[in-house]
C-alpha cells in the first residue's frame, strides 16, 4: 500500500505541467549557478595569479635576500568558495607578513569588482535556499487539504487504507518526486566542474556532497512543514498563505532580525572607540612623562650646583641614574598603554563572539538560516574564514622567517645591512630569484574539523525534519476526512 501511494505521488507531481515548468526553471538556475561559480573561480584565479606576481615585483631588482623581509600574500581562491560564496567576498583577501609580527590584513575585500556586491552572487547556497524551499511549498501546500477539496481523500479512504500508511507514502512520495528530479541538474552541475577544468580534492568532493545532502534535508524541512500545515488547515489557499508567511519569515526576516537583535543586545565597541581610549591614556601618560622630565631636569640642575666639587664624573653618573628613573617610568606608562590596548581588544573580541553566538542562536529558529550556516561551514566561507586565513598567514609568516634565515644566515629580527647591497651592486652581483620565496597556499581546515563545525547545523536540519514529520503524521491521524 505504501508503495502504491508513493508511486501515485511520484506520478501525480511529476506528471503535472506545473512541475514541468518549475523543474525547467529550477534546473536552469542550478546549472547556471554551477557555471557562474566555476567562471567566478576562474576570474579569481586570474586575479590571484596577477596579485601574487605583483606581490613579488618590488624585489625583482634586489640582489640581497637581506632586503626581502616582508611581502603581501593573497588568499588562495578555492572552487567551493566560488560555488558557495558565503563571506568570502566580505573578508580581506590580502595580508602583509614580515616574519616577526602578527600578519595584518589589508583593505581588500572584493574592492576590485564592487558591482558584484550590489545584488550579490547567484551562488548555489542562495539558489538552494530559495528554490528548494519554494519548490517544496509549491508542490506540497495542498498535499492533504487539496485532496480533501478535490474529493480524492474520501474516495481513497473509502478503501481499507490505513492512515499511517497513507501519510507515510505521501511524505515519501512527495520527497522523492521533488528530490530525485532536482538531483539531475545538481549532478550535471557537479559534472561541469571537472569538464570545465577545475579539479576538486577528495575532501572538497565530500564537502560538496554533504552540502547537497544539507540541501535535501532543507527541502525535506519545507516539504514536511507544508504537509503539516496542509493537515492543519481546511483550504489550500489558507495553507499556501501560511506557508508563504513562514517562508518570508524564515528566509528573509529571521536571519536579518537575529543580527539586529544581537547587535542591540550586545554592544561591541568600535575600533575608533578603542583608539580614543588609548589616545586619552597616551596623552595622560605624556603629561606625566613631561612632568617627570621637568622634575628630573630641575633635580639635575640643583644637584649640579650642589655637587660642583665632586667632579664631572659624579654628575654624569647621577644624571644617568635620574634619567634612568625617567626611562623606567616611560616604560611603565608604555606598558600601561599596551595593557589597555590588549585588554580593550580582547574585550572587543569577546563581545564580538558573544554577539555572533547570540545572532546565530536566534537565527537558528529559521531552517533557512541553519542551511546557510551549514553550507558556509562546509564550503569554508563562514565567519571562521577570516580566522582560518589569519592562522594560515601566521604559519606562512613563520616559514618565511625560516626561509630568510636559510638565505641570509641571520634572524629576520636582525637589522638590515644597507651597505652590503651597495657593495653587491659595485661587484655587479646577481639578482635574487624571487620565485624561491615559498609560495603561500591557503589550506582549508581538515575535513574532520569542518565536519565537527558543520555537524550541529546538519543535525538541526534533521531535527526540523523530524519535528515537522511527527507534526504532519499526528495531525493526519486526527484529520477530519469528511
Amino acid at each position, binding site marked *: *500500500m505504501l508503495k*502504491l501511494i508513493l508511486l*501515485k505521488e511520484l*506520478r*501525480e507531481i511529476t*506528471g*503535472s505541467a506545473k512541475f514541468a515548468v518549475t523543474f525547467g526553471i529550477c534546473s536552469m538556475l542550478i546549472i547556471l549557478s554551477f557555471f557562474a561559480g566555476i567562471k567566478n573561480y576562474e576570474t579569481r584565479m586570474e586575479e590571484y595569479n596577477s596579485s601574487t606576481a605583483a606581490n613579488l615585483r618590488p624585489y625583482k631588482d634586489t640582489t640581497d635576500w637581506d632586503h626581502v623581509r616582508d611581502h603581501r600574500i593573497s588568499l588562495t581562491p578555492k572552487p567551493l568558495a566560488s560555488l558557495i560564496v558565503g563571506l568570502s567576498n566580505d573578508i580581506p583577501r590580502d595580508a602583509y607578513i614580515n616574519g616577526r609580527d602578527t600578519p595584518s590584513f589589508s583593505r581588500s575585500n572584493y574592492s576590485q569588482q564592487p558591482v558584484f556586491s550590489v545584488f550579490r552572487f547567484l551562488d548555489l547556497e542562495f539558489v538552494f535556499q530559495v528554490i528548494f524551499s519554494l519548490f517544496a511549498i509549491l508542490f506540497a501546500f495542498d498535499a492533504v487539504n487539496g485532496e480533501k477539496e*478535490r*474529493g*480524492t481523500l*474520501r*474516495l*481513497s*479512504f*473509502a*478503501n*481499507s*487504507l*490505513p492512515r499511517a500508511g497513507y501519510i507515510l507514502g505521501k511524505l515519501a512520495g512527495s520527497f522523492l518526486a521533488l528530490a530525485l528530479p532536482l538531483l539531475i541538474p545538481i549532478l550535471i552541475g557537479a559534472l561541469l566542474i571537472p569538464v570545465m577544468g577545475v579539479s576538486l580534492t577528495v575532501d572538497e568532493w565530500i564537502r560538496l556532497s554533504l552540502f547537497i545532502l544539507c540541501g535535501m534535508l532543507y527541502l525535506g524541512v519545507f516539504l514536511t512543514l507544508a504537509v503539516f500545515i496542509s493537515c492543519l488547515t481546511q483550504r489550500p489557499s489558507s495553507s499556501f498563505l501560511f506557508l508563504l508567511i513562514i517562508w518570508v519569515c524564515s528566509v528573509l526576516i529571521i536571519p536579518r532580525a537575529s543580527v539586529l537583535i544581537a547587535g542591540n543586545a550586545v554592544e561591541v565597541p568600535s575600533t575608533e572607540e578603542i583608539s580614543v581610549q588609548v589616545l586619552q591614556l597616551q596623552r595622560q601618560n605624556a603629561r606625566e612623562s613631561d612632568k617627570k622630565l621637568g622634575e628630573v631636569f630641575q633635580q639635575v640642575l640643583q644637584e649640579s650646583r650642589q655637587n660642583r666639587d665632586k667632579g664631572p664624573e659624579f654628575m654624569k653618573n647621577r644624571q644617568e641614574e635620574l634619567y634612568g628613573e625617567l626611562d623606567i617610568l616611560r616604560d611603565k606608562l608604555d606598558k600601561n598603554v599596551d595593557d589597555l590596548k590588549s585588554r580593550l581588544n580582547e574585550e572587543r573580541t569577546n563581545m564580538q563572539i558573544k554577539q555572533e553566538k547570540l545572532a546565530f542562536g536566534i537565527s537558528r529558529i529559521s531552517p533557512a538560516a541553519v542551511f546557510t550556516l551549514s553550507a558556509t561551514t562546509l564550503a569554508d566561507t563562514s565567519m571562521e574564514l577570516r580566522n582560518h586565513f589569519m592562522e594560515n598567514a601566521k604559519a606562512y609568516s613563520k616559514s618565511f622567517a625560516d626561509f630568510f634565515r636559510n638565505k641570509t644566515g641571520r634572524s629576520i629580527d636582525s637589522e638590515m645591512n644597507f651597505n652590503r647591497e651597495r657593495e653587491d651592486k659595485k661587484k655587479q652581483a646577481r639578482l635574487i630569484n624571487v620565485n624561491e620565496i615559498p609560495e603561500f597556499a591557503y589550506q582549508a581546515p581538515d575535513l574532520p574539523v569542518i565536519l565537527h563545525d558543520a555537524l550541529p547545523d546538519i543535525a538541526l536540519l534533521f531535527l526540523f525534519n523530524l519535528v515537522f514529520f511527527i507534526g504532519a503524521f499526528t495531525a493526519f491521524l486526527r484529520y*477530519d*476526512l*469528511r
Partner: protein
Amino acid sequence: MTETEKQTVLEADKLTKRYEDGVLALDEVSFAINSSEIFAMLGANGAGKTTTINLFLNFIEPTEGEARVMGIVTHKEPLLAKEKIAYVSENVMLYQNFTAMQNLDYFARLGGKKDYSKDDYRDVLLRVGLQEEAHNKRLKGFSKGMRQKCGIAIAILKDAPAILLDEPTSGLDPKAGFEFMKLLDNLRSEGKSILMSTHDIFRAREIADTVGIMNQGKLVMQAGKDELSDKDLEQLYMKYMAGYMEEAA
C-alpha cells in the same frame, strides 16, 4: 437470486451521531438493505444523508448505534468493513493529471484488486459508457458526467457487495442521468446492495426498492416500491419536509 436467498448487506441500527458542539446530526436511524436492493435516501441539505454514509465509511464514529456491512460493525473493524464497500461521491474529481485508465488502475489497486489488465479497465469504462477515445486522456478536460462514469467504473472494479452513492446524479444532464440509472439497475441485478442519497425524487421512485425520507437527522418515512405505487412521492416528500408527519401516515 430469489427473495429467500437475499441477505442483509447494509444495516443501520439506531444509528445516532451527536457532534461535539451538541448538534444532533442523526437520531436513531435504522434500516436494512439486502443484496440486489437499492435504498434511496431523500432529504433536504443537512437532513443527515451524508452523515449516514460517513458513518458507514467510518469517517466519523457513531455516538450510539451501529452501522454494519455484511455484519461487520464499521467503527469497530473499519478496514475490514471497507473491503466490502464501494463508494461514489457527489462530485467525482479523481486525479486530474492521470488518465481515466490510470485513475482506475490506482483506485482498483487501492481497493485490493491487483490483477486487472488494461483490457479489464477498457471493458468497464465502455460498460459505464465512457467512449474509448477518452480512456487515455487526462481527466482535466472531462465533463462532470464523464468523471461520474469513471467514479462508477472504480466502484464496479472494486466488486464490493455494497455500494454507497452520495448524490450521484446531481448536476448530470438528463441523458447522463438516465444512463446512470440503467447502470444502477444492472448492478442491482448483479446482486449489489446500493445505498443512494439523492434529491431526485423522480429517479428515486423509478429505481429504488425502498425509499427513505430523512428530516433533521431522523428517518421519518421508509416505504417499499409497492407501498409507494399508488402515492404521489413528491407530495409525500413535501409534507414530511414541512413536518406533516401525521397527515402523511
